[in-house]
Every structure is written in C-alpha cells, then in structure tokens.
C-alpha cells in the first residue's frame, strides 16, 4: 500500500492500525515502509483517513510482490498460487474429509504468527529439516506451491525476500514419529530468526481420550487447555 503524500495531512491517526507497524510518521506526512508492508490492506479498508490518502498501487499486484497480498489479506484470493486461503480446511471438516486419520497426526506451523510477519525464505529453517526427514508437504497449501523443490523444502528465489503476515507449512506424520519430529522442530527453532506458532491435529480415541497430550508433555511441550474441537456434525460422516 502507499500513501498519497499530496493528500496526507500528517495527522498520524493511522499509525497504530498497521499490524506490521509499517506506517511511520515522516516530516510532513505519514509514510508506509514499502519493504515492511505485507499488503494486508487493513489501512485501505479500516482506517478512517480524513482525506482518503491510502491506495493500492499497481506494483503491489505484480509478481513477486503480489504474494504479499494473498498471504496477508484475508479478503483476497490466491490467484497467483491457485489455492484459496493460507492453509487447508484442516480439522474444520475432518469429520467429512478424513484428512487426518487414526494412526497419524496433522501438524501446521504458521510462520510469522502472532503479529510479527515472515520473509518467505526464512521458513527454510524448518522446511529443509522436515524435508530431510522425508516429510511430504501438503500439496493443497499455498506455501508448498512456492517451494522450488518440495523434496528439499527450498523456497523459490524470486519470492524469498517477500514479507507476508503469515505462511503455513502443513503435513501429516505417522503417530510413531511424533517425538522425533517435534524434537527436530524444537531444535531448529532455536536457530530461527523468525517466530512461528504451531499446532497438532489428532483424532479422539474411541473412548474419547487424547493420549497425545501425555506424549507431548513427556517431551516438554506444555499443552494449553484451549483447544479447537471438531464436534462431529459433518455429513457424510467419515470415520476413516
């Protein structure tokens, strides 16, 4: 996004609204740090600018910068990547899709969350290690589309420096691999120059229990009590 400096009156009212803190106060007007802006569009949509100085320039929609908008603006569609949304339907429709079956766990690592953002090349700190472990990245995920080689986890050169609000790596592991994969991710995270929030999808056991919680706690992962539960109302219901 950009600010028309011919219109901006420098009131500064817009500064707090940018999730990336990319709106700065210049000498006479507010200015957008073009390199830090992730094109989420909140300034155009939400800020009640008294002179309507915010606008979306054409260059924001040209490759490779265009990936910023599709990964950051929840109102946009993935026209460049061919996939809608930052991730898949994941647990939301698992009672119908059986994407995550008994005997496996789904894992999603959302880079840049919460509220920090990510240069797409920085995800390699984790994706390369996962690729070495033989992880197959979810093909219906837009970040996978931006990998030069899904067997190495390397991100395409032309988008490496593009900053987005967040990008999600999704994959499925056999239940037996939980400890080794989580430990690898934890070790790699200590070298990361970025932040990520991550989560795991599991099926409830037939008796309603969640043995995975105990396994996670054994390897030092503190499991919060706030969880996202698919309550099993979807039809046609798929047990597996």
């Amino acid at each position: 996004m950009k600010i028309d400096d011919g219109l901006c009156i420098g009131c500064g009212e817009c500064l707090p609204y940018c999730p990336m803190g990319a709106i700065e106060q210049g000498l006479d007007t507010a200015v957008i740090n073009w390199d830090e802006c992730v094109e989420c569009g909140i300034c155009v949509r939400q800020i009640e600018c008294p002179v309507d100085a915010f606008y979306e320039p054409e260059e924001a929609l040209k490759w490779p910068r265009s990936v910023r908008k599709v990964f950051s603006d929840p109102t946009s569609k993935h026209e460049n990547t061919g996939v809608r949304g930052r991730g898949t339907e994941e647990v939301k429709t698992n009672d119908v899709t059986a994407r995550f079956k008994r005997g496996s766990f789904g894992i999603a690592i959302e880079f840049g969350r919460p509220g920090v953002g990510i240069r797409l090349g920085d995800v390699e700190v984790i994706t390369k290690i996962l690729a070495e472990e033989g992880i197959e990245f979810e093909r219906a995920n837009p970040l996978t589309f931006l990998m030069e080689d899904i067997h190495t986890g390397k991100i395409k050169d032309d988008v490496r420096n593009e900053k987005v609000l967040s990008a999600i790596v999704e994959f499925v592991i056999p239940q037996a691999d939980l400890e080794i994969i989580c430990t690898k991710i934890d070790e790699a995270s200590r070298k990361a120059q970025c932040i990520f929030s991550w989560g795991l999808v599991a099926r409830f056991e037939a008796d309603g229990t969640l043995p995975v919680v105990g396994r996670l706690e054994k390897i030092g992962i503190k499991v919060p009590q706030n969880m996202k539960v698919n309550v099993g109302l979807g039809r046609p219901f798929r047990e597996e």
Partner: protein
Amino acid sequence: MTHSLHRLGPVDTFQEDYVFISRPAMGINHQGCTPKIQRTLEIVFQEGPTNLGSLTTQENLSLGLDPQTLISRTEDNSPVMCCFHEREKVINVLKHLKEEKVGLSVVVTGLIDNVLEICDEVGLKPHSVDISLGIHGKLEMLPEEEIMCLTTMCGHGMVAAGLVKQMKKAVVDGRMSTEAAARAMTKPCYCGIFNQKRAEKLLAQTRQT
C-alpha cells in the same frame, strides 16, 4: 489450521470464550449447500452471537453487519465464523444443528473441559482436535503477552499491537470506557471471532493494575 487456535491469555479469561466455525468440505459436500449455511446462520443469529464476521461483506457485528444481507449473500463456500461468551447459546446452537441434521462440519474452540462437557450435554461425540503447541523461534520479536492476549483473538492477525497499546492507554488514562476500546479493537477483525466481551474483561484488568 490456526485461525482460532492460538489465542493467548490466562485460563480464567477463556471461561466465557467460545469460537464457533461451520463450513462445508470443498469438493465433498459443498455443492448446493447454501441453504444449509443460511440455516446455520439463522440459528446462530437466533441465539445472538457476541460477534460474527464475513469476509464476503467485509463486516462484523460491531461494524453493523446486517444478518439478512449476509444470509442473502451466502454462497456454497461461505463459512460461518462467530464467537459467543455464553455457554448456553453454544449448547442451543449445537442442539438445533443436530436435531435438524444440517450436516455441515462444526468446530468449537474453547477450554477443552468446557467444550467436551458441552458435547456431552448435546449428545455429540467429538471427532478430532487441534492442539496449540505454542510459539517458538526468536521470541524477543514478540510484543508483551498482555498485548498478545488481545491481538491473537483475530484469526487473521488484523488487530495491530499498536492499536491495542493505544486502546489500553486510553482506558488507563480514563479517556475511553472498556466497552468503547473493545469495540474499536473489534472492527479490523472481519472473521468475527474477536470476542468483544473477553476484550472488555482484559481491559478492565489493565485498568485495575
């Protein structure tokens, strides 16, 4: 895989926080499901959600979203995204959806014991769960946790840390009520899962400290 998953904050602040999301599975049961989504919306509106949003109309309840307009603009791929602060309303919505056999998938995010109790009361057998494994990496890049308690309530990260800081200061200085500050923070969240009532409580705690 993350939308409502990584809400941060003390456990007691989640006692009145339930995120409700319903949607069809694309390619499996989405074709012709608009009436089911519309019925889900009607049931939700009948109970009265704390907040509800739409990426289609780019609105939420605090921005004046009109239920009938939203229902009329529903398409086969429209998700229902909202939150409640009252447990009974979640129970009533789930009961209706079950009794009417609407058939769309539903996820409820909340304290696991509370959600499981609700499922038990409605007679539902939970299918799957998404568990947050926390935040890792270069943690010094993050704002203070008391800020993230509020920013993480928007599933798409649209509520800026700067806005939260400004609102908290306005409340502490006595220039804004907790209600007005919470409403201002709710506006950027079109997904509609920013729980204004929880925000008010968090802001009230700020004022006390």
